[in-house]
């Protein structure tokens, strides 16, 4: 790619030698074209099919919103994503905090613990959870030896949330750590010297400063969770199917691509709305902190 670009670029560069800022833009071009071909084009054709397949009009959307079953699945998809986000945040915040205060070696270990699973295939990790969580699995055996359970973990919403949290936690820990490691810890000492107890100093000084990381992490996890397919399919029961699975039913089982498209459009629209809402809320929260 780069050689092609250079082959075309010299005349322009010769005429305008002192213009290094143009070239990076040019380098992005292949990526943009790929994005257009492999992402934008299918996306647009999906949106079009939602409005035209099998007949032009809003039929697919009327169908979607008139079936209580669909609305229930939509609701379940959002509550599941919300649960995953909340649990991931609660687990990741102290973890990321520990990473910032740990020594070099301990931090390397903590980072590795996040990254190694992150580099492992999603499918493999989900299957591992199937083995761990099944009724006769390791988790229930362990719980049994301490006199608890057995619990139905697999094929329940709990199982789905457990699996998805583990899969998505890196997307929460890493942005949190990035922001937290930039927070000047002397501010806490300063707050202490002004008479704040450690807890108050932490809540009033540290937490607000870490909010950008919280919002980035939550947004990434929440949006990824909305579109999850493999994990709920393997760890959940058909009873807790999420929207992505219903889309699969329409597209693959029934070959009703218009309906599948309409469901995709609804999911996309609601996701964009959530992002907008979060962005506005966070800007307000941010103003409160700084202003």
């Amino acid at each position, binding site marked *: 790619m780069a050689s092609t670009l250079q082959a075309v670029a010299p005349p322009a560069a010769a005429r305008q030698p002192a213009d290094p800022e*143009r070239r990076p833009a040019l380098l992005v*071009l292949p990526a943009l074209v790929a994005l257009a071909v492999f992402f934008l084009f299918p996306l647009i054709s999906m949106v079009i099919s939602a409005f035209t397949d099998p007949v032009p009009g809003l039929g697919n959307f009327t169908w979607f919103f008139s079936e209580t*079953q669909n609305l229930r699945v939509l609701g379940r998809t959002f509550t599941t994503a919300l649960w995953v986000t909340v649990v991931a945040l609660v687990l990741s915040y102290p973890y990321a905090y520990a990473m910032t205060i740990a020594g070099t070696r301990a931090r390397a270990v903590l980072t590795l613990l996040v990254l190694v699973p992150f580099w492992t295939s999603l499918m493999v990790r989900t299957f591992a959870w199937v083995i761990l969580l099944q009724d006769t699995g390791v988790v229930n055996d362990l719980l049994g030896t301490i006199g608890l359970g057995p619990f139905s973990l697999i094929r329940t919403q709990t199982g789905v949330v457990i699996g998805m949290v583990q899969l998505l936690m890196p997307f929460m820990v890493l942005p949190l750590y990035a922001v937290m490691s930039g927070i000047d810890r002397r501010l806490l000492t300063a707050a202490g010297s002004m008479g704040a107890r450690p807890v108050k100093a932490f809540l009033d000084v540290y937490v607000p400063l870490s909010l950008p990381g919280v919002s980035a992490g939550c947004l990434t996890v929440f949006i990824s969770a909305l579109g999850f397919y493999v994990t709920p399919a393997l760890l959940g029961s058909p009873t807790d*199917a999420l929207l992505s699975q*219903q889309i699969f039913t329409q597209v693959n089982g029934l*070959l009703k*691509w218009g309906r599948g498209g309409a469901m995709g459009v609804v999911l996309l629209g609601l996701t964009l709305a959530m992002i907008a809402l979060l962005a506005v809320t966070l800007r307000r929260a941010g103003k409160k902190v700084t202003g």
Partner: protein
Amino acid sequence: MPKHPARLAAMAGVAASLLLATACGAGSAAPASIDLGSGPAKSGTIKKDALSGLNMTFVSYGGVYQEGQQKAAVDPFAQESGAKILQDGPTDYAKIKAQVDSSNVTWDVIDADSIWAEAQCGKLLQPLDYSIIDKSKVPEGLSGQCTVPAMQYGMVLVYNKDKFGANPPKGWKDFFDTTKFPGKRAISGNPGDSAPGPFEGALIADGVAPDQLYPLDVDRATKKLQSVRSNLVFWKTGAEAQQLLESGEVDMGMVWSGRAYAAVKNGAPFQVAWDQWMPIMDSLAVPKNAKNPKASMALINYYLGAQQQAKLTELTSYSPINTDAKPSLDQAGQAFLTTAPGVPEKALKIDSKWWAEHQPEMIEKWSAWLGG
């Protein structure tokens, strides 16, 4: 803004078309003229080197099954006919639709659920040419206008013999009786699919006579299913069904005979109750606008041979569909064959025509109940 929009646009165009070309694959040549020889077709044979230089793609569901098909029929066919045959899969209905809709069909022979295939006859699949395909050794009623069976198996009742050995469940009535036979039951439950099995079992258990099953009373069936819902464990793939038996998570199951056999071979203490088993099969079919329909038909004809079918059964434990096939299997394997002596008579009669006509509606109703 970039300085040379025209140049940029040209480059973008070139890049885009390159990407598109690689994405779509280069189109194959026009159908070759094929000479399959003279005389009536005989299953399991192909004229030597008749398809020399031709490229074909065989599509199935992967795993042990497709490997068996490849070893028993597809590879020997390739060797004799001279065609080069690629394996692809899994059979994906959306992909078939996309290929047919865009008139760029790259799949030549597909292995698909027979009810789906029957429903798609003339839509996504083309009629078979029975002057090329010899179906004289296929049992009456199993082939359609667009389909021939790929193998046969059954939806069977299996139970844990360690738990129920003294007083085992005998049929679907017992399967749904959770007081007499407590425990979890594995049952097929794929929200994107619906096939003979759960509805028929529930109706039989609710007292419907086997010859009065169709048209299926879905409301009555789901009511019966609902009454035992807390005892049901839904499996979505054959592998999952097998795993449920092997890990001992269920005490009973409505599962595919081949998967039950595989679980038993791996040491799961299960036994099959053949009464009221439900025959199912996969079918071979050719997508509409396939590049070389004649070659596709020739491959199907070869696949149906007695020798190929015997070998397929030995490799996969699915039952052969050629009545002359004599697979050599161990005793456990023989016990799971739907073609074993005494077994065919015990089958429930499944109305696959009714299913083919009503499947979309059944998928919706089944998915709705599953998701409820």
